C-alpha cells in the first residue's frame, strides 16, 4: 500500500495576534484534482505558502509520500516536486515572457542561457496550452489576464513536479482560457500528478475537482468527494449558513439618466462608445479579456484623457481627464486591480477607508478625527470587513476583505454612479453576496452602476442591461429579458 502523495497535519500559524491557521490539515492523492475551499481569510493561501516554503509554520507536520519534509524556502519545495501558481502574483515585469516561464530553469549551454532554445521551448509550451502569446515580448506589455496565463504556463512547465498548486488561477482570465486550463489539468491528473486547486467560483469546483477540503477559521472542517456533495451543502459548510438566491437584483431602473457617455474614444483601446446609464440601473459591460473594458472605465473616470467624446453626469458635462472632476460629479470607481490601483497596501484599513472622504471631513485642513472614526466604523460594519481593527495594515487582510475595503472607500463619499471593474474578483461566496446586496441597495437608493465583469453568471445575474464590447467597439446590447449567456458569448467573440 503506497502512502498518500501529500499529508499535512495540525499546521498552525499566527501573526501578531491573528491566527491564520489553527489546525490545518490537507490530504492529496496522485491523480487527484483536489479543491481547497473556504471563505476569505480561511487560511488557504497560508497553508499553501507553508507547503511551498514561503512561511514557516508554528507547528505541524508535512509528509510527501510518507516521508516527513520541511521546506525552508521555495527552492527546496521545487526540488521536492512542488510547483505553485500563487494568488495574485505577477512575474518579473521587464523580463520576456519566455524568461519568466523558465525563470530558475533556463536551458543552458556552458553556463550561458541558451536563448534560442528558451524561446523555442516557451513557444512550444504556449502553443500546446493554446495561449496566444508571443514569448519574446516583455511581460509588462501584457494585460493582467495574459500575465496570469504566463504564471500558469510557468507552473505547468515544471514537468518534474508531482504536486501542482493553483491558488485562484482563473480570477483574472477569461472563459476560453479557463476551459483550456481545465483540459490540461485533467491530462496532468491522468498522468498521476496531484493537483490542489483553490477557487471562489464554485462552479469550477464541480467542473474540475474530484475531491475537496473546506477550511474555515484556519482549520479543516470537512473533506470528501465532490460527487458526494451539492453546491448548497458546500456553501453551507464554508460560511456556516445557507445562501439563498445568490444574485439579489430586485430593483427596476427609472428613466432618469445619470451618466451619459457620448462617442468616447481613446486609441487604440476603444472607439466611439456611447451609452446612457439611468438611476437605479445596473449596466453590465461584457467582452473578452483584453477587449478594452477597463480602459473605457479608466477614461470615464478621468484617469486618462479621451481622444474624443464627452462624459455627462446628470446633464452636466464633466471636465475630461480629471479624476477630481469625476469624483466631484459623483462618480466612484472600484478598479480591477486592487493591489495596484485600489489600495494603499502598507497603510491601515482605516486610512484606506477614509482616504477619499478626507476633503469632506476636514476643517482648515485638519481631519476631524471623530467624524473620520465614525465613517470608518460605519464602513467596516456596512461592508462586514473582517479585521482586528481599523489599525490593521491592509496588506495583512485576506483578498476578499481587501476588496471590501476598496468598496468601503469608494462608497464613503456617497457617490451617484459606481464604476465597477470585476468587482468580486477573489471574493468568497459570502462576501460576494454581501457585495451584490450592497450594489443592489445602492441602486435601489437611486444610484447607478456600470459593471464590467468576465463572469457570465455574475453579469447576467446582476445587470438590467448588458453592452458587449469587442476590440474596443460597442457591438451589441441586450436588455435583461433577452440575455442568455450563449448570446453574450456569441456577440463577444
Amino acid at each position, binding site marked *: 500500500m503506497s502512502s498518500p502523495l501529500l499529508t499535512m497535519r495540525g499546521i498552525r500559524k499566527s501573526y501578531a495576534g491573528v491566527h491564520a491557521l489553527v489546525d490545518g490539515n490537507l490530504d492529496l492523492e496522485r491523480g487527484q484534482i483536489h479543491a481547497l475551499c473556504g471563505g476569505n481569510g480561511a487560511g488557504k493561501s497560508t497553508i499553501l505558502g507553508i507547503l511551498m516554503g514561503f512561511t514557516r509554520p508554528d507547528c505541524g507536520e508535512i509528509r510527501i509520500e510518507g516521508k516527513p519534509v520541511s521546506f525552508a524556502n521555495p527552492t527546496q519545495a521545487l526540488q521536492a516536486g512542488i510547483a505553485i501558481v500563487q494568488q495574485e502574483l505577477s512575474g518579473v515585469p521587464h523580463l520576456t515572457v519566455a524568461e519568466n516561464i523558465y525563470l530558475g530553469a533556463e536551458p543552458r549551454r556552458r553556463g550561458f542561457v541558451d536563448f534560442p532554445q528558451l524561446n523555442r521551448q516557451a513557444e512550444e509550451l504556449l502553443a500546446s496550452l493554446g495561449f496566444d502569446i508571443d514569448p519574446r515580448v516583455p511581460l509588462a506589455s501584457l494585460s493582467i489576464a495574459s500575465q496570469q496565463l504566463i504564471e500558469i504556463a510557468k507552473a505547468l512547465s515544471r514537468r518534474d513536479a508531482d504536486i501542482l498548486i493553483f491558488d485562484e488561477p482563473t480570477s483574472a482570465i477569461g472563459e476560453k482560457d479557463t476551459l483550456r486550463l481545465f483540459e490540461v489539468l485533467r491530462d496532468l491528473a491522468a498522468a498521476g500528478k496531484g493537483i490542489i486547486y483553490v477557487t471562489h467560483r464554485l462552479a469550477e469546483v464541480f467542473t474540475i475537482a474530484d475531491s475537496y477540503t473546506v477550511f474555515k477559521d484556519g482549520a479543516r472542517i470537512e473533506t470528501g468527494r465532490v460527487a458526494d456533495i451539492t453546491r448548497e451543502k458546500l456553501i453551507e459548510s464554508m460560511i456556516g449558513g445557507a445562501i439563498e438566491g445568490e444574485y439579489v437584483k430586485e430593483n427596476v431602473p427609472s428613466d432618469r439618466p445619470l451618466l451619459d457617455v457620448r462617442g468616447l474614444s481613446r486609441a487604440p483601446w476603444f472607439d466611439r462608445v456611447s451609452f446612457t446609464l439611468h438611476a437605479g440601473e445596473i449596466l453590465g459591460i461584457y467582452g473578452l479579456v483584453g477587449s478594452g473594458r477597463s480602459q473605457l472605465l479608466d477614461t470615464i473616470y478621468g*484617469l486618462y484623457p479621451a481622444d474624443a467624446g464627452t462624459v455627462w453626469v446628470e446633464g452636466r458635462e464633466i471636465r475630461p481627464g480629471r479624476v477630481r472632476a469625476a469624483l466631484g460629479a459623483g462618480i466612484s470607481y472600484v478598479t480591477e486591480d486592487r493591489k495596484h490601483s485600489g*489600495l*494603499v497596501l502598507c497603510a491601515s484599513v482605516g486610512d484606506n477607508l477614509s482616504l477619499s472622504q478626507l476633503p469632506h471631513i476636514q476643517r482648515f485642513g485638519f481631519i476631524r478625527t471623530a467624524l473620520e472614526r465614525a465613517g470608518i466604523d460605519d464602513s467596516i460594519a456596512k461592508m462586514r470587513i473582517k479585521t482586528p481593527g481599523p489599525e490593521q495594515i491592509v496588506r495583512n487582510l485576506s483578498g476578499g476583505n481587501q476588496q471590501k475595503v476598496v468598496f468601503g472607500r469608494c462608497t464613503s463619499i456617497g457617490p451617484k454612479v459606481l464604476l465597477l471593474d470585476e468587482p468580486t474578483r477573489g471574493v468568497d461566496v459570502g462576501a460576494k453576496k454581501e457585495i451584490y446586496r450592497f450594489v443592489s441597495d445602492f441602486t435601489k437608493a437611486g444610484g447607478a452602476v456600470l459593471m464590467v465583469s468576465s463572469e457570465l453568471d455574475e453579469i447576467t445575474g446582476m445587470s438590467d442591461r448588458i453592452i458587449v464590447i469587442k476590440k474596443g467597439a460597442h457591438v451589441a446590447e441586450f436588455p435583461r429579458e433577452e440575455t442568455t449567456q450563449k448570446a453574450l458569448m456569441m456577440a463577444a467573440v
Partner: protein
Amino acid sequence: MHITQPAAKAPISLRKYGIVFAFLGLCVLVSALCQLKVVQGAWPENTFLTVNNLMLILHQISVNGVLAVGMTFVVISAGIDLSVGSVLAFSGMMAASMATRSVGVTPWSDTYPVIFPIIAALGVGALCGGLSGWIIARFRIQAFIATLGMLLAARGFTMSVTGGNPISGLSPDFRWFGTGKLFEVIPVPVVILALVFLLAWVILNKTVFGRYVYAVGGNEKSARTSGINTGAILIWVYVVAGFLAGVAGVILTAKTGSAQTSAGSSYELDAIAAVVIGGASLAGGVGRLTGTFFGALIIGVMNNGLDILGVQSFYQLIIKGGLIVVAVILDPSRKQAG
C-alpha cells in the same frame, strides 16, 4: 479569524517604540564606558550624563534634525531629497547677504530687520524645493535625479551670490537664532527644532495633507484613483523639505556666524540616515516623525559620545558605520517597514 487583542498590543507597542530602546541602549553603553574611565581613575567625573552635555547634543542635532523632518516627508512620499545640504547653503548665503552688520538701510538701524534675512532664507529654500518637486511631479522623473540636479545647481547658486566668498559679520539679532538662549538654558536652535517637530507632527498626523503624503508614497496610483492630486502633493512635499533646509540654513549660519559656500556638504546622508534609522522605508508610505527624532538623536549621541570617549577618528568612522547598521537591524519595526 480569531483576534486575541492583548497579544496584539504588546508587539505593536514594542514595534512603535523599539527605536526608543535602541536609543536608550546606546546612551547606557556610552555612559557605562565613561563611567568605566571614571572608576579606572582616568577621568574625574562622568561628563556624558550631564544636563549640559545633553543640551549640547540637542544643540548639535538641531540642524540635522530640522533637515530630517523635511526628509521624513520626502521619504514617506517615496522620494529622496539629495539637495537639502546645498539648499541649506544657498539659503544660508541669501540670509547672510541680508544680515550683515552694515547695510545702512534704515535710519534707525544699520541692518535690515532680522525678519528679512529669515524670510529670504525660507523663501529661497521653499523655492528650490518647489522647483525640484515640480520637475518630479511634472516630468515624472526619479527624485534621485531631480534632486541630484538641484544638489549641483543650488551649490552653484550659492557660489554665485558672492562669487564664492563667505559672508561674515552677521548682525547680533540674526546670530541670536544660532547662539541665543531661552531662559538662559535652552539654546534657540533647540527651541526651533522642537517647534519644527511639533508643527510637522501635527501636519503629518492630523491634517489631510499629511494623510495624502502617506497615501502618495504608499501607492501613487491608488492615491490618484482616490481623487488625490498627487502632483500637487509631491510638489508641496519638496517645498516642505526645501523650506526646512532654509530653516536649517538659518540655524547653521547663525551658529557659525558665517555663510560658507561649502556649508552643508553631504548633510543629506545624515538626514536620510536619521529618517531610515527612525523606521521609515525608502520605498515610501511608512515612517514616523518620532522615529526620525530618535534617529537624529542616535546619530547625535554617537558623534558626541565617541568624541567624549576620545575615540580616534578612523575608529569613529568604523564604529559609526557599524552602529547605524546595527540600530536598523535591531529595530523591531523594520520587518513591518520592509
